[in-house]
C-alpha cells in the first residue's frame, strides 16, 4: 500500500508555435491505504495523462506529486494498460519475469501464483500471439500484481473487451485485490464500472478539473447483478448528468 499525494497538479502540452493545451488544471487529492480509487471523466479530459504523470512516464508542468510506501521508503508501482503490452517474442512467463527486479525462485513462484489467479497457469509457456485478447489482458493484470506494487495503476483495462469477459475480469480483479493489500488508481470512462469496483470516484471534467469526489460505501464482494450496486450506479449517473453538456475544452492560445 502507498500514500499518494497530488497537489495543485497542472499539465499543459506544448503544441508548438506558441500554442499550448491545458490538460490538467490544478488537481489535488490524496489516496492511501487499501483503497480502490477510480478516475472517471469524458474522453480527452486527461485521465491517461494523469496516470502517466503519476507513473513517471510523463513530466508535469507544475504542482507536486509524492508517493511513499506505507512502510516508508519509495513505493513500487505496477501498471495495467488499456492494451496488454506484452513482448510478443517472449513467453507468458518470460513476460511476467521481465518486469521483476530479481529472478529468484521465490519470485518465479509468485509470478506463477498470480498467473494461476487469472486462470492462465496452463498457458505459462505460450507466446502472446497464441492467446486471445482477453487472455493477454489477464496476463497484463497478473504481471502488474506480481511485482507486488504498493500502488497499482490501471488505465481502462477492460475497455477493449467484450461485456462478458470484462465482467468476469472485474470480478476476478476484486477478488485478487481483496487478497492483496494494494492502493489502486483505476481510470475508466465507465461510471457503472467505477461504482462496482471503487471505494471512491474522482470525476474529472473537460479541461482537467475535479468535478466531484464521490465516496462509494457498499459491502464487498460486489457483483454487477447486485441490487444495491445497480441502485447506486443509477444515482451516480444522475449526479453526473450535467457533465454531458460540457464540451471538451479547446486548446488555449
Amino acid at each position, binding site marked *: 500500500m502507498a500514500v499518494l499525494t497530488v497537489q495543485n497538479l497542472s499539465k499543459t502540452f506544448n503544441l508548438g508555435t506558441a500554442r499550448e493545451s491545458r490538460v490538467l488544471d490544478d488537481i489535488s487529492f490524496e489516496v492511501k491505504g487499501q483503497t480502490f480509487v477510480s478516475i472517471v471523466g469524458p474522453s480527452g479530459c486527461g485521465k491517461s495523462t494523469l496516470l502517466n504523470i503519476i507513473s513517471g*512516464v510523463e513530466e508535469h508542468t507544475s504542482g507536486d506529486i509524492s508517493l511513499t510506501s506505507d512502510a516508508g521508503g519509495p513505493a513500487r508501482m505496477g501498471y495495467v494498460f488499456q492494451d496488454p503490452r506484452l513482448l510478443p517474442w517472449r513467453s507468458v512467463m518470460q513476460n511476467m519475469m521481465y518486469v521483476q527486479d530479481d529472478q529468484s525462485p521465490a519470485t518465479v513462484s509468485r509470478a506463477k501464483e498470480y498467473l494461476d489467479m487469472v486462470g492462465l497457469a496452463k498457458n505459462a509457456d505460450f507466446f502472446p500471439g497464441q492467446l486471445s485478447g482477453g487472455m493477454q489482458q489477464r496476463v497484463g493484470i497478473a504481471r502488474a500484481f506480481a511485482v507486488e506494487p504498493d500502488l497499482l495503476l490501471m488505465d481502462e483495462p477492460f475497455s477493449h473487451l467484450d461485456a462478458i469477459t470484462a465482467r468476469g475480469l472485474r470480478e476476478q480483479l476484486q477478488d485478487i485485490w481483496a487478497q492483496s493489500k494494494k492502493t489502486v488508481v483505476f481510470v475508466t470512462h465507465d461510471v457503472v464500472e467505477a461504482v462496482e469496483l471503487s471505494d471512491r470516484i474522482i470525476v474529472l471534467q473537460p479541461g482537467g478539473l475535479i468535478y466531484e469526489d464521490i465516496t462509494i460505501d457498499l459491502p464487498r464482494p460486489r457483483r454487477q447483478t447486485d441490487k444495491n450496486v445497480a441502485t447506486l450506479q443509477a444515482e451516480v449517473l444522475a449526479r453526473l448528468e450535467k457533465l454531458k453538456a460540457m464540451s471538451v475544452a479547446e486548446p488555449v492560445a
Partner: protein
Amino acid sequence: MTDQMVVGAAPAAPTGPADDREADARRTARFRRWRRNALLALGWVAIYLVWEFGSWWFGSRLLPRPHEVFASAVEIVESGNFVTDFSASVLKTFAGFGVAAAVGAPIGYLMGRYNYWRAFFHDGVTIAGTIPAIVYAVMSLIVFGLSNFGPILAVALVSAPYVALNVAEGIRGVDRQLITMSEAFGRTPAQIRRQVLIPTIVPFVFAAIRMCFAVAWKVEALTEVFGGRNGVGFQIRTEYQLYDISAVLAWTVLFIAFMLVIERLVLAKAEARLLSWRPEERGAAL
C-alpha cells in the same frame, strides 16, 4: 429462455452437399499440385535439352555434355576437395556476414534511433549499397592481394549497407508502447535494448542477410577466382587454367546446388526457429 432453446435446437444443416463440395475441393487441389509438379519436371527436361543442344552446336570441347559434367562432379566429390574447398568458401562467406553485421548493425541502430545520425549516415550508406559488387571484389583484391581476407572483405562490403538499412528500418518500427510499458515498470535502458529493441530488429537483420546471401556468395566466389588461395572460386580458376571446362562447370553446378541448400534450408530454418514466437511461423514446414 424458451426462444433461446429453440435457436439451440435448430436442425443441423444437411451434411451431404457440404461433403461433396469438400471432396471436389480436394480433387481440385490434388490436380493443381499434380500440374505444378509436372511443369516443374518439364522445366528440368527443357534445361537438359537446351544444354544437350548447346553441346552439339558448340561441340563438347567448348560446352561439355551434361553427363560429362556430372561425371566430373562425382569425381570432385569423391576426391574430397569438395569438402575442404566448400567449407573454405562457406566460412569466408559467413565471416564476411559477421563483419557486415558487426559494422552494419550499430550504424543501422544509430540511424534508426537518432535523426542526426540518420542524416550523417543516410546518403553514404545508400551509395555504398548501390556500388556494383564487382567493384567491391576488385577493391578487396587491391587491398589484400592473394589471401583469404579479400573474399571476406568483399562479402562484408556488399552486405553491410543492407544490414544497416534494414536495422534502421527495424528500429524505427519499434513499438513505442512497449517502451512506455518498460519504463512504467522501471526497466533500465540496457534491459529495454535487450528485451525490446533487439528482438524487434532480428527479423529485419534476417531479411537483410537472406537478401545479401544471394549476392554475397557470388561475390565471394568471384573474388576467389581472382585472388583466392582455396575455395570454390580458386578451384574454378585452377580448372580453367588446365582448360578442363567440364570441371569448371561441375564446380559451378555443385556450388549453386550447395548454396541453394544453405539458403533454403539452413537460413530459412534458422529464421523460423528464431521467429518461432510469430504465430504464423509456428509449425510452418520448410
